[in-house]
C-alpha cells in the first residue's frame, strides 16, 4: 500500500510570498494516498531533508512528493535523502510550484489553487512509480581532443599528465593552431612561437598523447564513457613513418603557386610543403589540387629526390573508429573574410590587410622575414591605420557580438609597428577600448602614452585608394565631434572572430548545441561553462566564443580536469530511466530506430517476427521512440503510461 509523504517548500519567499503553503498542506493531507504532509522554509537544506528522513522512519511513508523548484535543480538532492533511509530513490516525484507557479502566476489565490493541483497530480503519479535500479556501464579511460590549437594542446597535456591516454586530433598538417601564426602576444609581448613550441614538442613526445594530424571527425556514436568516434585521415601522399622532415622536397618542387595558409595567403608555397618551420610533426603534405604528378602524371621530382622514399602518390583517405570515454571540442575560430566590407575595398586593395596578415608581415618566419613592408610594392609604411570592429558589433553587416581580442591585439600591433618602423605613425579607429584582463588596460595605455599611437574614436566610413598609392581613410573623431581623414600607406582591419566553417556540422555529429552565430553552447552560461548539454563532451577555447590565449588555456585545463574527474571512476552510473520494447506488441516497423539519436535500437528475431530491441547501455532515456511508437510497444521506465495517465486524469 502506497503511503505518500508530501513536503511543500517555501523557498524563502520565492514560493511562500505567492502560494499559501499552509493551505496546500491542509488541503492535500486528507487525500487517501497521503500519509504525511508538512511545509518547510527550505526543503533542500539539511533540516529540510531531515524532515523527509524522519517521516520515512516515523510515519513509515514509502513514496515522497516534494513541492518546490524544478527537478532539474534538486531532484538528486531528494533522491539521496530517500536512499539514505533505504527507500528506492526513484520513488520520489517533484511538483514544480516555483518556476511553473509562484513566479508566473499573479493572483495569490490562483497560485495557491494551481499549486494544490500540481502537487495532487504528483501524488497520483508517484503511487504508480516503480523502484528502479541504477545501471552500471564500464568506462573507456581514453579521451579525444578535437583541435590541436593551444586550448586543445593544454587539455591534452593535462589529461596525459593525469596518466590517461589522449588522442589529439588536428585537421591541418600540424598542431599549433592560430597561436603558431602569431608574432608576439599581449600584454607581455613575448614571442608566441617561443612559448608555444615547447608545448607542441611536449605534446608530441608525451607517452600518453597520440597526435593525429590531417584528420577529421566523421561520425560520433555512443555516450559518455563509451563513445565511438570515426576519424578520417586525409590522403597526404607522404609516409609519415619514413619521412625524416629534411624539407628537400619542398625546395625542389617546381609548383610554387599554392597560397600559403600559414602566412594568411600573403605569399605562395610549393605543392609539397611542411606548413611552417616549427611544425609538429614536421612532415610535409602534398596538395593534390596543385601537384602535377597527381593531376597530370608529370613531374614526380619529390619522389625522385626524397632520400627516405617517403612519397606515396597513390595515398587515399583512411577511416578508423576509436573508442573514447570523453570528448573535448577545441576547434577554435577563423578570422572573418572582410570582403563584405566593400567600403573598405572588399579585399581589392592590396595594402588593406587583416589583423592576421599583419601578424605574419611582422613575424620573422613570415613572407618578408620579419621586415614590415607593405604587400603591394614592398615600401615601408610610414602611416598605418588600424580599424577596429570590422565585422564585430556591427549587426547590419556581420555580427552583433564583440570579438573580444581585437582591442588588445590592435594595441599590440601598434607597438609592434612602432618597433619595426620607429618614425612611423599609427592610428587606431575604435568604438570603445575593451581591455578588462589583467594588466590589459595598462598595456593599451602604454600604446597610447608611450608609443604615441593616436586613437580616434569613431567608425571608419570609407577607404579610398589615391593616385599616389596612399589610402585615404575617412573616419570621424567623435570626441571632438568632427569628420577626419588620414592618408595611410597601409590599413589593418581587425576582422571579426568567427566559428570554423564546419562548426555546425561537427556540432550535429556530436549532438551538442550551438548558438545563432555558430559558436558552441555551454550547458549553463555561469555554472557549467565547460560542459555541453551532452554528458562527456566538453568545450575548450574559441569554438565556444571569442577568447584570448590565457582564457583558452584556462578552459583547456578546466576541460581536462572534468575529463580526469570522469575517468577517476571505473564504471559510469547510468540512469535506469531507459526505454524497453515489449516484443509481443512490436510490429517491427522500426520507426523507433529512425528517430533514435543514439543508435540504441536494433532489430532482432522474435519467434517468426522481426522486432525492435533497445540496447540498455546506449539508451539515454530521451523518449523519442516512445512517442513515435503508435502501438505503444515501448515503455520508458519512470515515464510509464500509468504514471502519465494518472497525472493527466487528475487534472480538473
Amino acid at each position, binding site marked *: 500500500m502506497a503511503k505518500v509523504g508530501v513536503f511543500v517548500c517555501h523557498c524563502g519567499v520565492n514560493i511562500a510570498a505567492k502560494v499559501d503553503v499552509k493551505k496546500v498542506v491542509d488541503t492535500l493531507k486528507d487525500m487517501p494516498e497521503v500519509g504525511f504532509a508538512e511545509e518547510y522554509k527550505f526543503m533542500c537544506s539539511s533540516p529540510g531533508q531531515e524532515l523527509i528522513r524522519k517521516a520515512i522512519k516515523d510515519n513509515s511513508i514509502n513514496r515522497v512528493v516534494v513541492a518546490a523548484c524544478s527537478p532539474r535543480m534538486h531532484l538528486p538532492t531528494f533522491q539521496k535523502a530517500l536512499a539514505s533511509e533505504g527507500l528506492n530513490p526513484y520513488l520520489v516525484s517533484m511538483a514544480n510550484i516555483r518556476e511553473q507557479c509562484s513566479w508566473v502566476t499573479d493572483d495569490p489565490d490562483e497560485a495557491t489553487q494551481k499549486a494544490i493541483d500540481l502537487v495532487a497530480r504528483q501524488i497520483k503519479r508517484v503511487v504508480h512509480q516503480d523502484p528502479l535500479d541504477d545501471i552500471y556501464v564500464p568506462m573507456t579511460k581514453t579521451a579525444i581532443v578535437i583541435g590541436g590549437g593551444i586550448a586543445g594542446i593544454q587539455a591534452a597535456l593535462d589529461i596525459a599528465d593525469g596518466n590517461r591516454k589522449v588522442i589529439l586530433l588536428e585537421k591541418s598538417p600540424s598542431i599549433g593552431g592560430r597561436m603558431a601564426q602569431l608574432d608576439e602576444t599581449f600584454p607581455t609581448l613575448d614571442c608566441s612561437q617561443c612559448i608555444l613550441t615547447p608545448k607542441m614538442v611536449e605534446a608530441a613526445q608525451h607517452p600518453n598523447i597520440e597526435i593525429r594530424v590531417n584528420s577529421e571527425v566523421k561520425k560520433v556514436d555512443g555516450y559518455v564513457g563509451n563513445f565511438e568516434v570515426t576519424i578520417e585521415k586525409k590522403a597526404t601522399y607522404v609516409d609519415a613513418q619514413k619521412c625524416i622532415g629534411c624539407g628537400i622536397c619542398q625546395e625542389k618542387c617546381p609548383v610554387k603557386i599554392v597560397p600559403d595558409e600559414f602566412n594568411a595567403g600573403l605569399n605562395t608555397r610549393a605543392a609539397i610543403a611542411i606548413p611552417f618551420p616549427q611544425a609538429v610533426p614536421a612532415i610535409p603534405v602534398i596538395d593534390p589540387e596543385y601537384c602535377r604528378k597527381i593531376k597530370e602524371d608529370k613531374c614526380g621530382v619529390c619522389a625522385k629526390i626524397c632520400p627516405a622514399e617517403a612519397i606515396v602518390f597513390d595515398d587515399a583517405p583512411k577511416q578508423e573508429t576509436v573508442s573514447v570515454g570523453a570528448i573535448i571540442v577545441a576547434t577554435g575560430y577563423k578570422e572573418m573574410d572582410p570582403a563584405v566590407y566593400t567600403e573598405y575595398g572588399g579585399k581589392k586593395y592590396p595594402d588593406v590587410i587583416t589583423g592576421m596578415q599583419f601578424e605574419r608581415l611582422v613575424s620573422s618566419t613570415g613572407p618578408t622575414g620579419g621586415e614590415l613592408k607593405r604587400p603591394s610594392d614592398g615600401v615601408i609604411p610610414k602611416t598605418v591605420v588600424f580599424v577596429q570592429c570590422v565585422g564585430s558589433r556591427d549587426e547590419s553587416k556581420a555580427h552583433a557580438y564583440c570579438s573580444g581580442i581585437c582591442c588588445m591585439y590592435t594595441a599590440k600591433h601598434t607597438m609592434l609597428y612602432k618597433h619595426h618602423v620607429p618614425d612611423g605613425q599609427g592610428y587606431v579607429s575604435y568604438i570603445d577600448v575593451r581591455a578588462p584582463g589583467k594588466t590589459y588596460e595598462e598595456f593599451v595605455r602604454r600604446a597610447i602614452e608611450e608609443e604615441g599611437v593616436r586613437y580616434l574614436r569613431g567608425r571608419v566610413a570609407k577607404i579610398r585608394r589615391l593616385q599616389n598609392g596612399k589610402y585615404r581613410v575617412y573616419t570621424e573623431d567623435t570626441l571632438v565631434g568632427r569628420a577626419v581623414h588620414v592618408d595611410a600607406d597601409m590599413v589593418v582591419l581587425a576582422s571579426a572572430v568567427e566559428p570554423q566553417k564546419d562548426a555546425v556540422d561537427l556540432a550535429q555529429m556530436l549532438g551538442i548545441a550551438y548558438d545563432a552565430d555558430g559558436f558552441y553552447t555551454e550547458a549553463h552560461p555561469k555554472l557549467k561553462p565547460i560542459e555541453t548539454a551532452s554528458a562527456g563532451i566538453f568545450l575548450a577555447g574559441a569554438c565556444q566564443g571569442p577568447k584570448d590565449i590565457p582564457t583558452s588555456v584556462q578552459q583547456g585545463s578546466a576541460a581536462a580536469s572534468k575529463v580526469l574527474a570522469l575517468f577517476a571512476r571505473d564504471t559510469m552510473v547510468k540512469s535506469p530511466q531507459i526505454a524497453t520494447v515489449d516484443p509481443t506488441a512490436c*510490429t517491427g*516497423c522500426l520507426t523507433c530506430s*529512425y*528517430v533514435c539519436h543514439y543508435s540504441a535500437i536494433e532489430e532482432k528475431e522474435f519467434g517468426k517476427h*522481426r522486432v525492435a530491441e533497445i540496447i540498455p547501455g546506449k539508451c539515454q532515456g530521451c523518449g523519442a521512440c516512445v512517442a*513515435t511508437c*503508435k502501438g*505503444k510497444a515501448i515503455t520508458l521506465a519512470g515515464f510509464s503510461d500509468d504514471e502519465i495517465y494518472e497525472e493527466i486524469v487528475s487534472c480538473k
Partner: protein
Amino acid sequence: MKAMRKKIKELFANGDVDVVLGYREDPASGEVKASVFKKDEMLEDMVFDERCVQNLVNYLPTLVARYSKVGIVLKGCDGRSLATQLVEHRINKNQIVALGVGCEGVKVGGKDADKCEDCPTSMSPVTDHEIGDKKQKKDPVFSKVEEIEKMSPAERWKFFAEYFERCERCYACRQICPSCYCEICVADQQEPKWIEPSAKLSANTMWHLIRAYHLAGRCADCGECERVCPQEIPMRLMNNALEKAVHELFGVRPGMDPEELPPLVVLSKEDPDTIMGGKHE
C-alpha cells in the same frame, strides 16, 4: 484487360506467383469485389475498371503469411499504399509481384471518387510489371482542406463535432486501413484506458484525432476509411489536412517512393525549422 490477363497467365505458367490478388466481377450479382485468384482458369471473371475501388493492399499481410509469392493488381493509389507498407517492413517485397495497371479513375456511388482529384499518379510507384499508361499529375490542390482552413477555429470545431457526434465506434475505418496495424490498438487498451470505448463526443473526438495523427506522413490517401464509414464521417479530410501539411513542409507525398522513409521519422539538416527561426546558415 487482355494484356493483364495474358501477363497473369504467364506468371502462373512460370510459377512466379502462387496466387494473384485482383478484382472479380460476380457473374450472378454483377458486383466487383476483391478476390484471390488461385490459378489462371478463373481469369475470365477478372476485371479492371472504374468499379475497382477497393484497396487490395489490406489483404496482403494475410496472404503473404500463407503463400510464398503473391501477385497483386495495383491502381496508382494502392501502389502508394503498398510503398508505405514496404517502408514500414510490413511486407517483404520479395514475396510480392506487383502488377501496376494504368488507372483511369474510379467511381463511388456512381460519381468520380473524391480521392481521384488529387491523385498524383495513375501508375503504382512499386511495379514489377506495368500495364497501361503512366500519367503523373501536378501538385495536389487539397481544395476541401482549404475550405476547412478558411473557417474560424469555432466553426471548424462545430463542423467536425457534428460528424464526431455520429461516430458509432465500429472501427470499420481502422479495419480497412492498411496502415492501422498495431498489435493492440490504442483504442482497445485497458490499462490505462486512453480512449473511452463508449460512443460519445469526447471519446469519439479522441479516437478520430489519434487515428488521424497516427497516419500523419504515412497515409497514402486510398480513401477506404471514408468509403466504408457507415456514418459518412469525412475521414479523408483529416488525413488530407495532415498530408497537405507534410507536403508543404517537406515536399513529400507518402508512398511515392518505396525507398523513402516517412518525413516525420527522419532528422535531416535540410528540414525547414520554422519553429526555431529557420536553418542556421
